[in-house]
């Protein structure tokens, strides 16, 4: 090629690049017909091995309108996700994984074969086996075993797919929670909700796209990083809606500023900004104007959607809400309301499931039962309520913890705990999914006789993430963000969609 031709080609490339950018910007503003498909995917598809063009892999998002809705890679079965995370890790052995054999071993020394080469968070020496501390029966047409700790959920098992052989490689809370939600046990990676809002934007521009609700008195151990945006732009981090203070940080006007005055003030700001735009022609000014308008609308819509007092009594009864408290049932009802209003990803964390037996509230024999009482009704109501509103079809509900609990009774530092408890367990636990194109009334994966190891249908956090993304219309291997010179994905280099539970 001659220099001249080269130059011409370079110009052409530049022009293409410029028009692509212009197009993206406009196209995000006006129509979203091609969204991800035509533009972003080219760069999204690049990966360490799959690189194509040699051009920099830009992360295409419009900084002025980062949350406008975008189309997924392929037709989605779910439009939104409600993820109920029981922080601390609930015991699968008292809820879903029925092990009569374990009962026979109750009180006996744990066989050395289960202990050799294993590390536990707290168990030392030789612990005793602990039989199931609940009664189990089969329910529904699917005949799923459920314990009497979950009297409500047992009525709707035919809506649910249970994953009974989930495993992880992290036995401490924070890294295990991070692995579950960010695809890596360390800080710094974007959470699932951030990925989803990055990929899909949000349908309701008057509400955040990714909302986090916490209950149980504490944040999950990994802190805000489990809903952080990691290396994605910070706009994609989860917005924590709080039951105390401002429902969203800074959403309330200062005292003395009523709605009319705020309106007048935003009008004045925007009028001045319009003048500025006339002078400067900077499109960024126009987007600031619209962001202020949106902020004003958010100030209306967030408190409104966060206010559950207007819900009819039968809904309160159904969920078992406790208005005015930071209560899980309230958050579950809120989750339904938020999804109904077009929020893309609602993440709940309920703290207090860490049943070591070190005290009453954190025990298998008392604490766990209480946590079930606080949550069972609401979780069941969520499924039924979504169903009666026709929302269950495109809302994916996920329930689970960060790992499971041991079939052995915990003996902290070799001593017996005051209550019955189980230690952290990485080799088998249960997570379930419902709605959003998930098969109804099925169980996938099996554990051994005592619920220690997964023996078939083993899945990992990455598989669950891949499945969630799949239901939302993304191939988890091709949904990437360029950072530190390489494309990153939620599932890192792992993950396989769990086809067995897809309808």
């Amino acid at each position, binding site marked *: 090629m001659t220099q001249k031709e080269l130059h011409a080609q370079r110009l052409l490339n530049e022009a293409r690049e410029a028009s692509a950018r212009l197009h993206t910007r406009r196209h995000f503003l006006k129509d979203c017909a091609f969204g991800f498909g035509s533009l972003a995917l080219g760069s999204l598809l690049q990966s360490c091995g799959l690189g194509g063009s040699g051009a920099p*892999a830009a992360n295409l998002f419009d900084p002025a309108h980062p949350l406008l809705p975008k189309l997924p890679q392929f037709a989605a079965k779910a439009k939104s996700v409600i993820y109920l995370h029981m922080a601390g890790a609930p015991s699968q052995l008292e809820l879903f994984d029925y092990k009569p054999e374990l009962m026979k071993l109750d009180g006996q020394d744990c066989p050395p074969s289960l202990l050799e080469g294993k590390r536990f968070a707290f168990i030392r020496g030789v612990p005793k086996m602990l039989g199931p501390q609940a009664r189990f029966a089969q329910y529904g047409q699917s005949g799923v075993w459920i314990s009497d700790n979950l009297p409500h959920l047992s009525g709707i098992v035919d809506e649910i797919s249970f994953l009974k052989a989930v495993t992880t490689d992290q036995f*401490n809370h924070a890294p295990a929670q991070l692995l579950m939600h960010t695809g890596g046990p360390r800080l710094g990676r974007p959470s699932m909700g951030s990925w989803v809002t990055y990929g899909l934007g949000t349908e309701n521009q008057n509400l955040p796209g990714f909302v986090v609700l916490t209950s149980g008195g504490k944040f999950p151990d990994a802190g805000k990083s489990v809903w952080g945006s990691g290396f994605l732009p910070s706009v994609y981090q989860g917005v924590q809606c709080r039951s105390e203070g401002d429902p969203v940080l800074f959403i309330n006007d200062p005292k003395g500023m009523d709605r009319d005055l705020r309106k007048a003030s935003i009008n004045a700001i925007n009028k001045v900004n319009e003048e500025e735009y006339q002078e*400067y022609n900077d499109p960024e000014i126009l987007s600031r104007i619209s962001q202020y308008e949106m902020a004003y609308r958010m100030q209306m819509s967030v408190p409104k959607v966060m206010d559950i007092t207007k819900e009819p009594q039968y809904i309160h009864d159904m969920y078992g809400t406790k208005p005015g408290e930071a209560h899980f049932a309230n958050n579950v009802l809120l989750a339904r309301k938020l999804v109904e209003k077009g929020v893309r990803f609602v993440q709940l964390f309920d703290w207090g499931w860490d049943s070591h037996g070190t005290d009453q509230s954190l025990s298998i024999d008392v604490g766990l039962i209480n946590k079930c009482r606080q949550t069972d009704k609401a979780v069941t109501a969520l499924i039924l309520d979504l169903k009666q509103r026709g929302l269950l079809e495109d809302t994916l509900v996920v329930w689970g913890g960060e790992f499971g609990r041991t079939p052995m009774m915990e003996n902290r530092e070799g001593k017996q705990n005051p209550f019955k408890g189980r230690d952290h367990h990485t080799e088998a636990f249960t997570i379930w999914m419902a709605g959003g194109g998930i098969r109804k009334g099925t169980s996938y994966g099996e554990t051994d006789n005592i619920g220690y190891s997964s023996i078939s249908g083993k899945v990992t956090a990455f598989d669950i993430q891949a499945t969630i993304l799949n239901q939302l219309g993304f191939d988890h291997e091709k949904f990437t963000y360029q950072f530190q010179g390489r494309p990153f994905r939620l599932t890192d280099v792992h993950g396989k969609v769990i086809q067995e539970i897809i309808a």
Partner: protein
Amino acid sequence: MKFFSLQKLMIAAIVVMGVGAWWLFKPSAKIDFSTEVKPILNKKCITCHGGVRQKSGFSLLFRDEALAKAESGKYPIVPGDPNASELVRRIHSKDPEERMPYHSEPLSEQEINILTEWIKQGAQWGEHWAYVPVQEVALPKPSTSFFGLFSPSKPAWVKNDIDYFIYDQLQQRKLDPSPVTEKPTLLRRVSMDLTGLPPSDHLAQQFLQDNSRKSYENLVDSLLASPAYGERWTAMWMDLARYADTKGYERDANRDIWHYRDWLIKAFNADKPYNEFLTEQIAGDLLPNATDDQFIATAFHRNTMTNDEGGTDNEEFRTAAIVDRVNTTWEALMGTTFACVQCHSHPYDPFKHDEYYKFMAFFNNSRDEDTEADYPLLRHFSGSDSAKLVAVVNWLREKGFKGEAAKTYRFLKTWEPTYNSLTTDHFINSELNDTKWLAMRTPSSARLKNVVLDRRSELIYRYIGFVPGGTITIRLDNVNGPVLLSTSIKPTKDWELVKLPFTQVQGTHDLYFIYNNPSLKDPKASGIMFDWFYFTRPLPGQSLPGYDSTNKNFWQVLSAKNIPVTPIMVDNPPEMFRHTYVFERGNWLVKGDEVKPAVPKSLGALPKGAPNNRLGLAQWLTDKRNPLTARTMVNRLWEQLFGTGLVETLEDMGTQGAEPTHRQLLDYLAWQFMNRYNWSIKKLLKELVLSATYTQDSRVSKEALEKDPLNKFYARGPRVRFSAEQVRDQALAVSGLLSPKMYGPSVMPWQPAGIWMSPWNGYTWTRSEGEDQYRRAIYTFWKRTAPYPSMISFDGVGREVCMPRRIRTNTPLQALVTLNDSVYLEASRYFAYRMQREAKSRNAEDLINKGYELAMYKPIAPGKLKALMELYATALQAFTKDKDKTCEMIGTNNEHNDPGTAALVVVANAILNLDELVTKS
């Protein structure tokens, strides 16, 4: 590169041909690897035949690999002989199973011709521009005649050399540059850019009233000399250094490392040359007679995270920190993404897998081991401790013990090099308590490996004795080996130091620590816990006068308590040397070949005579032949002023990064930075802000906007939103609340309740008092797992790892911060009071005029005034009707408690929210 060849060509044309149409003579049909061949390889071949995958044993990343025999036994490339080259045959093949690219679109005829011709010409490899050392660049002065034979005329718009490059491209694109913007706008732009704050009244008036030609330059000089300058550039550097006031990971406990932040401020203000600035941060500890400040500078690489969570593998997180140091060094200082080389050779750039680990070897011998205390630490002595330290060292020097003086000084200042007890193993009835410290029950033992005992006869250790009674016996080589020493253990309330003599033995030994305490009845209770061990010999000069007091001073300084500390770098002495291995596929548990410290071959070698350690690395990094260091910094400074880098991807100037918009300008500036300004950042910034390019008006016509929507070619001035820090600092400054206090521990200004709710850690956000609430944003306490919310809303980054570039967004949550965050409400109140103080009357129009002028340094336009006047009227009406609301808006019942002031607070809040306020125009 192309530029040079054109230049040479031009000269050749002139010399040989005299005048003539040189462009008719094509450059010898020499194929250029970088611009012609590499793009084809990157696009069509390297996915399967590159750094990640080498299908059929063939890779196109390096020439030696590409010329080697492939698995088939054939040679894909035979230089000079396309017909013998399998590659040529395969790209021509019609057989779909043979044709390359495999099962993809065939190459175009043109691409095939380029590759064939290139092989014919010898298949020379070329280098990506960013990996070639910076050369001096001639100015592209526009010529009014052929070939510059006549003296070029200077376009009226051009002010300095930068402008020639910009003008050249504008002309090519048929774009016209903009005139200088009006003074008030320029004043605010350059002040916010250089100091992160609006100008002081004094400076503003001086500039606005001075119509001399030098007025702008004088302003720039004053801003560069302002102490606020250092704070502003420190804010930028803190993202690169991943500065935080906590250690990260789950426990995310507090860390005192603010001395490093203060070091940055002072270094920027003193205009420490950038090469020294980097050298001290990378290897300040290894400089001869390193000062405290040089040690503090090394905290740059101690901002890595430390995992305090129990049960975590300290070696895993030590390794993670080392990896982070490598990645940060490349990304922040050399604009190159090196992280991918961790797992495999770079897919596109000339870095091999093992080169990552060779580079890592420079960092792998620092003493830090993920300890809870964050060792090594620099201990900041004051008062009598400080005097005693000097006395000890001086005494040793005076008595001729130079080496001992240096060693003693380092030990007293850093408690290094000690063996951390968390490196013990072979636990029998002992364990690492919370995986942090060796804790021993009775009876118990543990091993400390490979201790060099030659010429040592004294042990100093740090311990807690939990119970009375008990003995520690140290045996050589096994639990029943010869006794090195045995001592009874005193109970303590806290960590204490103990010094014990032992009989000298030769050689390197494993030491077995054996604890026995018959009086300790609880079999599960620990009797003793160790922090670290130090094997040494008594201070020399026992027989000399002053020995006793020196020895006493030594001990007092060594064991002094509650000494403030800063984490720093200290290297292992040879006897504690760590070996470095390649991690197979990046997995730290799967170790491959051992490697020695080295820089990647494609970027040269350490300068002659440079030591093969971090100091040598720093010398290579700041060598003028390093192609990346100056380019990266110049690009970053450009981005800070203009909103986008000359290479947009600040983090990656490699073949996968964005193409530079003005490569020659980048090189020109990099050359100037190193050679003309001797790495002076202030001089470079001055050059940048004095350019016509920078001082342009940022207004743009719709037509020009269409031509260059992102202002990549700089036909107008920069117009971008301020950073999170600038937005906050400006609001505080305009309202008059900003505290000028500099330095010191980080502060906790107002923050909504419930932001910090970490389980298992008792730290709380305790609101600072007095002026500490109104300090500049860089002083706000930065917690990694719960950063200050308004910073994050405005695109601040989490600082877990180095973030070389912030991505600007525009969101409603940002609006909510400046509308409703109490910080901004308070700023609005004080801003309103300031308007009342400084306006010529209490008349609303005068007040609003004043307010706008205080913020924007220019009179308000009539339309804008009208909008704000209407707001004032509406607010006044509302507050007049409702006294309670007035009271609430003012906050406290003070002299400002009247409807007029309340209405003015609303207006003040509106002004602080204007696009033009949060934007640099």
